[in-house]
């Protein structure tokens, strides 16, 4: 079986009876067995469960007419290991949750199940989604399928690598500062961060609650729209999910984008952009012009404060969100003579250094005497950044930027320099601070080594349909998405 097919193509073949779900799943399982021991995209593979779900899907397709209308029936999906799936490990790539099994389904997982998806396994990530390279996983470093010396990006590096390497038909990731879009860019797939509140966070292990959002990683734009159709929607169990109707996100695909106003934020086209990235993005801009889009320069004047703002807010929230991992009720425990010693030993042994760094930073910015200078000020700057985007979106329909300033870096290259690592997120974090939607899709390659380059498009909050329409028009006019690693 060809493992580099889109969801849409596999679905068609399943519905036409050309292939069974069991064959599809077995095909992917075979590929996983042959390549994932080097790649480490998956933390846990539920082989038996996957085959069982495939059999159920095949039976349903044969006997139940309703089954055919389920958008993901029989199609294998992997889920980032920070999103709860009942009965499956939920380790967040952390030692502290190494033995934890989720007692409930996240809303996204129950929606995937209702849509008929076969949940094959759990994808690797930076511990608690903190990182940009998947090097911060307590389990293993995931490798870039295009070149094993390079990182796949992060924190959804396992999900991106799994899609890119043909280990699954689609993957689910989470994006707090670029954690879907950046690895999608590095691995050459499509990664969508929906608007904040569009997809329920219930069941997503919180890193930074006001920034986190779940989204799909897929082979192409249509597949991203298909998965978004399944997972989007208001959820009463998440007070921050927005009670707003969803739409059929595939409906606008194929419409032309003549007259669409596309903004280039001048602060994003800076010195230090990798030459290959610059060439690819320039090419993408021309392509958009050819498709009839109007290119406009816009300004997002507070961009230079985005990284600092982001790291204050996300660490503050993380310091509280991760407090629950204390060894008392679940997870790994190292005993102590009193609760304080138990906490210190458990958390000292259970968390990796990046997680500890962020907890300490977050604890600091919330401390009495520092709160106003850091946390409160960061919230004010966040408002200014939001206003920047509002002003820009008053002038244009979409923003076009590189997803990352350079292609995937080498394993170990930045792991000793947290600041350099943080800077890789510079183009992606604003969408999380603002809450608008953003997407990365392939737009070129570097040479020697050949590594994918990603184009980021950002849309107004809750205008995913418009974003996907433009991305699809670009994608269909190029061949970048058709390439896959050898």
């Amino acid at each position: 079986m060809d493992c580099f097919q889109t969801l849409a193509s596999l679905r068609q073949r399943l519905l036409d009876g050309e292939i069974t779900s069991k064959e599809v799943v077995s095909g992917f399982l075979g590929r996983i067995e042959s390549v994932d021991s080097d790649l480490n995209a998956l933390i846990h593979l539920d082989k038996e469960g996957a085959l069982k779900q495939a059999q159920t899907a095949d039976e349903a397709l044969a006997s139940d007419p309703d089954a055919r209308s389920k958008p993901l029936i029989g199609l294998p999906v992997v889920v980032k290991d920070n999103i709860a799936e009942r009965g499956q490990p939920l380790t967040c790539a952390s030692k502290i949750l190494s033995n934890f099994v989720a007692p409930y389904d996240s809303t996204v997982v129950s929606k995937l199940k209702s849509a008929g998806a076969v949940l094959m396994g759990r994808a690797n990530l930076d511990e608690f989604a903190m990182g940009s390279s998947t090097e911060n996983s307590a389990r293993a470093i995931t490798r870039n399928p295009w070149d094993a010396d390079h990182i796949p990006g992060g924190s959804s590096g396992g999900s991106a690598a799994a899609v890119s390497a043909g280990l699954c038909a689609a993957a689910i990731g989470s994006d707090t500062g670029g954690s879907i879009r950046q690895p999608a860019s590095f691995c050459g797939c499509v990664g969508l961060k929906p608007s904040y509140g569009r997809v329920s966070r219930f069941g997503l292990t919180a890193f930074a609650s006001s920034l986190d959002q779940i989204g799909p990683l897929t082979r192409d734009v249509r597949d991203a729209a298909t998965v978004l159709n399944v997972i989007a929607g208001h959820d009463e169990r998440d007070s921050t999910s927005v009670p707003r109707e969803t739409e059929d996100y595939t409906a606008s695909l194929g419409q032309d984008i003549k007259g669409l106003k596309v903004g280039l934020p001048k602060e994003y086209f800076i010195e230090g952009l990798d030459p290959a990235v610059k060439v690819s993005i320039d090419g993408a801009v021309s392509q958009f012009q050819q498709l009839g889009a109007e290119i406009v320069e816009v300004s997002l004047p507070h961009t230079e404060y985005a990284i600092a703002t982001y790291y204050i807010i996300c660490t503050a929230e993380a310091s509280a969100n991760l407090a629950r991992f204390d060894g008392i009720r679940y997870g790994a425990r190292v005993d102590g003579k009193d609760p304080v010693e138990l906490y210190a030993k458990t958390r000292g042994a259970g968390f990796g250094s990046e997680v500890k760094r962020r907890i300490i930073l977050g604890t600091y910015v919330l401390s009495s005497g520092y709160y106003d200078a850091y946390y409160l000020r960061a919230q004010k700057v966040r408002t200014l950044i939001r206003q920047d985007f509002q002003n820009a979106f008053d002038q244009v329909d979409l923003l076009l930027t590189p997803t990352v300033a350079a292609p995937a870096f080498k394993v170990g290259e930045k792991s000793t320099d947290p600041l350099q690592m943080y800077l890789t997120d510079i183009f992606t974090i604003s969408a999380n601070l603002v809450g608008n939607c953003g997407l990365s899709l392939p737009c070129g390659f570097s040479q020697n080594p050949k590594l994918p380059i990603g184009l980021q498009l950002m849309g107004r909050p809750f205008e995913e349909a418009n974003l996907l329409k433009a991305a699809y028009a670009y994608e269909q006019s190029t061949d970048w998405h058709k390439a896959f690693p050898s």
Partner: protein
Amino acid sequence: MEYEPIIGLETHVQLKTKSKMWCGCANQYGADPNTQVCPVCLGMPGVLPVANEEALRLTVLTGYLLNCDLPRHARFDRKNYFYPDVAKNYQITQLALPSTLNGHVDFELNGRTERVRLTRAHLEEDVGKSFHFDRQSGVDFNRGGVPLLEIVTEPDITSADMAYAYLNALKDILTYAGISDCDMEKGMVRCDVNISVRPKGTQELGAKVEIKNMNSFSGVRRAVLYEVPRQIEALKNGETIVQETRRWDDIAGITESMRTKEDAHDYRYFPDPDLMPFEPSEAWFEEVRQGVVELPLARKHRFVEQYQLPEGDAEVFVNDVPLGDYFEQVAGKAKQPKAIANWVINNLRAKLVESESTLEDLKFEPASLLELVQLVESGKISSKIAQTVFGEMFDSGKAPGAIVEEKGLVQVSDTGAIEQFCDQAIEANPGPADDYRNGKEAALNFLKGQVMKLSRGKANPALVGEMLQKKLKG
């Protein structure tokens, strides 16, 4: 130098909701440990809180009852501290923008009406309960996440008795409005007491000593009675009072130091990003306001004034709200509400207790009670017969007029008939008749009783007395 105490109270009250604050688990006391828990209230990875609207409603209702300002924009904050009974290691509370602010409670103390001002009453979640065994400890999270109202006073309290009276008044209000059961035995009310002393006449507050986690009102009174003289004594000995937290030892009857200001927590409060600000519509506030009930003290005063009842009767109707409401239904149309009050308190209440039933089970109409009183007032039946009629009315639900007719219980006021009964009685009891003639007044009552017996209770007792007197001494 003379010193005066300055006391403030922080009272934590569990709200009477069906479910917990953030999840669907039952808010119920007494289940086996950790049986009323779910991933949300256990702080599992990935869960999110969803605010219980009933708890928010009860909080705002409390605000109305305690004369508070009700901000149209409230918010939840995270209070961060590590403790085994705190599932998330942060407690969700309302620090910066609470649901209610600036209220007061009025209550009676030594015949005067006192007022304690409130700083705020805010909503938060309760934590689990720790248990310590021989070699290990455990936490029961059944209580974790139960909605809790923290009611904070200004430092307006000046004595142990005043603290005690305030707490009882607060409890009455909250139980009255169905906001909390305030069952101390079940830990539904817990208090922190802040005490400082200062030279009488000065304005500056002294160092504040907080006594944590008191679980009885009498304990609060005793702790204040201990702590105030302790602080005054210390100051008189030239010591300084340090800001600290103390624990009340109920058995020894003393307070002991737990921790000083130096090891106070930095709770690192910040707005909870999992919850939206609470900004309900005016219509919602209006709906909550419909639930406002009359407060106990106001009700007592009203019953005394409106119905001219003695305070004792009014208090009965304050303590037993349904009985008081029933009284009002009948008394509104009565000429002498006091007579209705007597029937309701002395007869109706007794019958209800005796038959183990409630007002809802009553077979007769409220109007029947009024009719019964009118039958007595108009002299149609005697009050003794009225007791019989009431019993019948209670059992069968029939109207008193019908019972009187049916059983022929109409009071005999016909002088001819009464004269006959009197003659019979005097004839049959010559001894007592002579006694009375010879000045023994008590003998008249005996003869009266005989006449009533002969008339089967129906003779008008006043007429009987007159008639006998006339016949024997006339």
